[in-house]
């Protein structure tokens, strides 16, 4: 029995020793040599295509497509061409350093600020773009990478060898023109994506969508019969649509990734692509009732739908929760069109410097029956309120029409001349008599936007 154990142990040791032999007859190279070889191999693949790589970059599932061409060289630089309009075309054609690391696999890092970093920084770096990618695999001629910085559902990008004609596909002029539609939308604190009215001219139908050129997505909100706001109201009003999609711009076309389909007048309408070819920076209608403010206009056509016009709009469902209630705000949150607080560099500071807040009684009957149920004005530093009445109104979509009366209410006693000052303040802030309400990314907070002077008033319900 004793001998048998030793025989078994001898066999075990022999097996272990023979297991050391490499069947292939060669030893594995040291780690650093293998890493260097893997990096060199990936780099040689990145620099190989004669026309570089084509990338249709979609940073998040909600975003649209950013079209890019990338040309890597052996000296650690990459030329990136893109259709991203920002900083006077900085990202149209840029060369920056890149690096291939070995960490969580082979990582492609764009080392200094470029188009990927610009997208990464959107929304206080919360948009979801990236500039570090982990190499995943080869798919035919393509190279597939995955985002390193996405925590869940990492973005996957596919580099495809570019062809000589790909550089002609950039739609930078279209992208730049569409950005101009954002000039007349609320900008204070957090900018609001503009709304557009897409007029299907041949069908006499309008579609209203929120158009976000920085993230390249569209959220369709309404459709209606007619071309003007009044025509649409007279023809049955706004019919809700709820459809969001990213878009791309290729060869002068605005292409919806998920075509928009809706029914109106018993007809199903699908918008998948619009060719926009005639831009007039000042061709659109004024959004202010009293001034001829200029807005842009794009004309084009869509397959099966005929002529299409795209103009600015402020009609949106993003503020239709602004209904009868009491709203107030610290006085620091009323801004002019340049973003200056009206208490610091504006009419409130000039006429009522000792003001602490702003209040709006919107259709609310209060305990104190002397306070007009439709009125707005100031909360003074001593706690007194001083408001001016406006005629009964309601929110139509997100539009509030204000017509002031000469009735004032002061919770104490107004000084001589104060009534005239409050009249001046309310007339200036609400000149034109129409404001549009928009949600703020925080519960119960809204902003009112006046298209005539671009003043913005934040209000808390």
């Amino acid at each position, binding site marked *: 029995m004793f001998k048998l154990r030793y025989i078994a142990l001898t066999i075990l040791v022999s097996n272990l020793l023979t297991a050391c032999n490499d069947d292939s007859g060669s*030893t594995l190279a040291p780690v650093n040599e293998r890493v260097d070889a893997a990096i060199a191999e990936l780099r040689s693949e990145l620099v190989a295509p004669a026309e570089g790589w084509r990338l249709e970059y979609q940073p998040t599932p909600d975003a649209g497509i950013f079209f890019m061409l990338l040309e890597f060289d052996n000296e*650690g630089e990459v030329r990136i061409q893109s259709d991203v309009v920002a900083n006077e075309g900085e990202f149209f054609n840029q060369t920056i350093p890149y690096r291939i690391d*070995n960490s969580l696999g082979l990582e492609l890092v764009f080392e200094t600020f470029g188009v990927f970093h610009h997208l990464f920084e959107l929304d206080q770096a919360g948009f979801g773009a990236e500039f570090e990618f982990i190499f995943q695999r080869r798919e035919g001629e393509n190279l597939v990478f995955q985002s390193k910085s996405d925590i869940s559902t990492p973005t996957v990008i596919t580099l495809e060898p570019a062809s000589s004609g790909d550089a002609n596909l950039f739609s930078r002029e279209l992208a730049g023109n569409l950005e101009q539609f954002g000039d007349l939308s609320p900008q204070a604190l957090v900018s609001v994506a503009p709304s557009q009215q897409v007029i299907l001219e041949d069908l006499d139908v309008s579609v209203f969508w929120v158009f976000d050129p920085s993230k390249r997505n569209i959220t369709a909100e309404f459709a209606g019969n007619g071309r003007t706001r009044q025509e649409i109201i007279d023809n049955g009003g706004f019919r809700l649509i709820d459809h969001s999609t990213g878009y791309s711009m290729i060869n002068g076309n605005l292409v919806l990734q998920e075509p928009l389909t809706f029914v109106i007048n018993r007809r199903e309408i699908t918008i998948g692509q619009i060719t926009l070819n005639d831009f007039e920076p000042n061709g659109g209608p004024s959004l202010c009732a009293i001034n001829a403010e200029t807005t842009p206009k794009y004309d084009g056509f869509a397959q099966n739908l005929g002529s299409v016009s795209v103009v600015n709009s402020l009609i949106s469902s993003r503020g239709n929760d602004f209904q009868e209630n009491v709203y107030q705000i610290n006085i620091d949150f009323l801004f002019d069109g340049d973003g200056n607080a009206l208490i610091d560099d504006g009419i409130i500071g000039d006429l009522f410097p000792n003001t602490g807040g702003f209040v709006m009684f919107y259709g609310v009957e209060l305990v104190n029956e002397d306070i007009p149920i439709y009125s707005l004005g100031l909360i003074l530093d001593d706690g007194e309120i001083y408001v001016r009445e406006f005629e009964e109104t309601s929110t139509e979509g997100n539009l509030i029409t204000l017509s002031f009366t000469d009735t004032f209410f002061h919770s104490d006693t107004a000084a001589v001349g104060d009534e005239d000052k409050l009249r001046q303040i309310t007339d200036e802030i609400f000149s034109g008599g129409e404001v549009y309400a928009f949600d703020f990314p925080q519960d119960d907070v809204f902003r009112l936007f006046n298209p005539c002077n671009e003043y913005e008033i934040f209000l808390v319900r």
Partner: protein
Amino acid sequence: MKVISKRLLRLLWFFPAITVMVSACYPDETLNAPVNNQGVQLDSDLDIFIEENFTKEFGMAIRYRFVDRYVDPGQRVTPPRLETVQPMLDFIQEFWIDPYLEVENGEEFFRGHVPSEIVFLGGLIFNEDGTVTLGTADAGAQITFTNVNAIDPEDFDWVTLQLQTVYHEFAHTVHQQYKLPNAFETISPSGYTSAGSWFTLNDEEALIRGFVSPYATSSPNEDFAETVAFFLFDSDFMEEFMTDEEDCQDDDCVSRNEGRERIRQKLNSISDHYQRVTGVRLEDIREAIQAKL
């Protein structure tokens, strides 16, 4: 005493022997493979300039190419634009390095205390909790400049962000190496805030407690660094913190002046400490900096 049987002894002998044989099967691999292989070295004029003027000159590496270990996991940052790096180098040379080189014993002090790594970031640091970090440093080993992409030496706010960060962080090296001045903590003993609550104070409340800023109340070390940074950078320091308001008519005014007295004591203490342990007169550095601003 516990007795081990002969049988067990034989088995114990075999286990180490087998272990040695099994481990001997692995190829001879080095353990010093780099964590981050920098890959292609771009020997640009900029890299050569950095190597000559910062790395070799002061032993200070300038990191402008993005490496994610420079920030904590969860912090979202971007690298700087390539074209901002040289102007940023010129900026820190002029406003941080040169003032030390110009004063007596300043060069020796600077070379002996310079952090090993300077990191440039393009924008601000966005944290997971929605807050934004303006500047950061790591125990004197690394100083991080944020918002380099917005470089504008004519923009007071931008200059303030950069210089207060670097003077503050560089001041930490002094108390880290030589401790705080004697009895420094006793000058405003009850003024320090509990952990994480400094931001509940405003500037005036901090002054009344005897501090140059709310952040200075967070600890004696931060008090030391903030006082140095404000003294070096703030052109109104003398008027704001060293000179009492005259003809005080209310209690707040009296309290502010009492706070100023504490700040005067702190500054004297810090100034003496600098002179004694580094040979540098803090007043000379302030003068050199103010001449450039």
